[in-house]
């Protein structure tokens, strides 16, 4: 048997829990939620990284669907409810393949039934509009993690990719974390500043997740996790789910992206400009400067390091499929997880190590958050604190 066969056999027993997939946003942008126009029951490889046949081929057993919305919308709350509705409709449309899951027990039940446990994660504190009531509404609708920020700061937490604001978490930010603990919603520290990561680890009484982040020691990008934070995961019990996004995991791609952005600015465009003229400048740059290509091995390097820093019990996978334009060679869509597992087998990872990476750690973390919530709910009432009352 090749190591790829071994990988597939292993995934049949311990499938992948993926921490972050942006299919809902892709469906919103491409077809305005017309699920018939992008029927994921069949092959959608021309348009999407994700469809059910490829999730099956990839050995995916549980997916946190991201209900991300842009932070610059005039009102992110209704858009977040639309994203949630999209996931609920997907689950209703594909009941044989997607199993609605709210708990660790639901995830295990889905695995036993051979269905893909479908969970939801909200990406960015802007989705709760500084309201703990709205946070509880999202929880009631099935959202099981909240990434504290996206690319920009929120009034109560700093983002990794913005200027320092409150310097980590504000008092209200810590209250958000406490309320998430009480609910049993996982605190997701991808996208947040290192200061926010440390503040959140201080404030939380439940394990945290990084739904899609890699190691800063391997590739120095603010979206990745510094070693001192990885080293705190054993005490916290949480997990870091490695992401595949080339411009975060490959140093050459980080440098290339910086140069491309600089080129855009030199031509008088914003570096994220996607107008026709902007794209023309960008394409001209890409022709003279070939985009560096990450590989399966690049991602495995991160996992090797994260394992050193955090330990085998504190790793997971968060591909960010359909949330990134580019993917590493060999990890081109959701069918490709076996390639990563095969690479790790070749590097000497044991079957029991890989079972933890793919399935067991993530299920354990959600279950632990539920246990903490059960304890807290018996002693603590819902918080009605406001940004004004705590951060004034």
């Amino acid at each position: 048997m090749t190591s790829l066969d071994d990988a597939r056999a292993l995934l049949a027993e311990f499938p992948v829990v993926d921490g972050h997939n942006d299919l809902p946003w892709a469906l919103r942008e491409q077809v305005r939620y017309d699920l018939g126009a992008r029927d994921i029951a069949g092959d959608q490889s021309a348009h999407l990284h994700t469809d059910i046949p490829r999730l099956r081929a990839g050995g995916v057993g549980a997916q946190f669907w991201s209900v991300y919305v842009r932070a610059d919308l005039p009102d992110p709350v209704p858009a977040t409810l639309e994203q949630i509705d999209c996931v609920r409709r997907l689950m209703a449309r594909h009941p044989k393949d997607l199993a609605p899951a709210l708990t660790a027990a639901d995830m295990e039940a889905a695995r036993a039934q051979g269905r893909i446990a479908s969970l939801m994660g909200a990406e960015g504190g802007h989705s709760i509009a500084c309201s703990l009531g709205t946070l509880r509404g999202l929880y009631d609708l099935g959202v099981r993690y909240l990434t504290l920020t996206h690319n920009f700061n929120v009034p109560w937490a700093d983002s990794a990719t913005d200027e320092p604001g409150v310097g980590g978490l504000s008092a209200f930010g810590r209250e958000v974390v406490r309320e998430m603990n009480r609910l049993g919603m996982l605190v997701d520290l991808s996208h947040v500043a290192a200061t926010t990561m440390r503040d959140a680890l201080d404030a939380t009484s439940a394990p945290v997740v990084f739904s899609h982040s890699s190691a800063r020691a391997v590739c120095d990008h603010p979206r990745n996790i510094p070693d001192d934070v990885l080293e705190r995961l054993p005490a916290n019990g949480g997990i870091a789910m490695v992401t595949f996004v080339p411009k975060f995991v490959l140093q050459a791609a980080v440098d290339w992206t910086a140069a491309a952005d600089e080129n855009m600015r030199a031509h008088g465009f914003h570096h994220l400009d996607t107008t026709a003229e902007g794209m023309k400048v960008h394409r001209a740059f890409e022709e003279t400067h070939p985009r560096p290509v990450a590989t399966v091995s690049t991602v495995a390097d991160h996992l090797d390091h994260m394992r050193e820093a955090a330990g085998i019990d504190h790793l997971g996978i968060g591909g960010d499929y359909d949330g990134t334009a580019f993917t590493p060679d060999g990890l081109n869509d959701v069918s490709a997880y076996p390639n990563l597992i095969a690479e790790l087998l070749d590097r000497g990872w044991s079957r029991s190590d890989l079972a933890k990476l793919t399935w067991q750690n993530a299920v354990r973390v959600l279950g632990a958050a539920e246990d903490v919530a059960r304890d807290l709910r018996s002693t603590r009432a819902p918080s009605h604190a406001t940004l004004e009352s705590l951060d004034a």
Partner: protein
Amino acid sequence: MADLQDDLHPAAEAGRADEPYPEEAVVVGPEVYEPVSDPDDAPLTRARAVLAAHPVADGYSGLPQALRRLPWYDLDLGESAVDADVPRLRRGQVGAVFWSLHLPEGHDGDRAVGATLEQLDLAKAVVAAHAEGLRPARTAGQIVDARNCGRVAVLFGPAGAAALGDSLSVLRSLHALGLRVLTLAGASWAGEAGLTRFGEEVVREMNRLGLVADLSHASTPTIRRVLALSKAPVMFTRSAARDLRPHPANLPDELLAEVGEAKGLCLVPLTAEQAGPTVRDVADHLDHIRTLAGPECVGLSGTYDTRSAHPRELRDTSCYPTLIAELLRRGWEEADVALLTWGNVQRVLRGADFTAHAAQQRRPPSTATIAELDG
């Protein structure tokens, strides 16, 4: 369909295996109403007996909003700062109540979705904190369950049309969170000119979900269009008779007749402003609407804790027996009182669920957008 929806007549027991299957078809007719009070008793005694069997389903309460203004409260033992607490709901023989999620006056509709989520969160927290007295309910069946457990059923709604943020996905999410009633006023798609194309799609999606349309404060063109369009019965959560007392939310006689034809439900608010300053005024409205729309189309809306003035005899939620006694004194049949207090709301909620079950077989969730339909 009426038989299926009529909770006054409990379903026949399931057949027993040892009974032979009947040779001929058995026609089950509507059961005759069995009186529960002694006609020779005093009206108040009779009212209590009727309410014990057919408690009040109150169509509108502002309690969650009123509690938000209080630093501390205890609904279990009694709370004088509001019109409704558990002891007075029990004394008033209230079996179910709709809690309004309308946004406070002055809210301009901006960020209405988030504000509605907060209202809903608050309402759920209040119910959860008073589990000995209150129980959340979504359907007619759950209301009956709550009653069998000795709890007052709380339903969430109505919310204002602005709560949708002009999105059917948000409508579905609010429904999933427990919203049961939506007022079709206060949005661009349900204005003075009536429903836009998107507004009509909202009504169809509400039918598909089992959300009841509330037409109090809706414009007359909107009311007429929804009466024609809706496959499920509609409600007016706070409307009295305009011919007795002019008020924009009260219904003129010709509309009351149309509501009767469509088998809608007009819930009369017990407020001085809309119904009048005495219990007799309220009874006059109930008489009038019963005559014009029919006994199966009239109900009660306490409208307590909304900062409205109430008739002196109906100052809080403990006073319903006084009103029912007045109706019995006027010669109302017990059967009509039973419809007024309990049966009609059950009928409307069962109708909404019945329509939803049927519609969900035929229609997928609507993905129409306001931009696409109203340009």
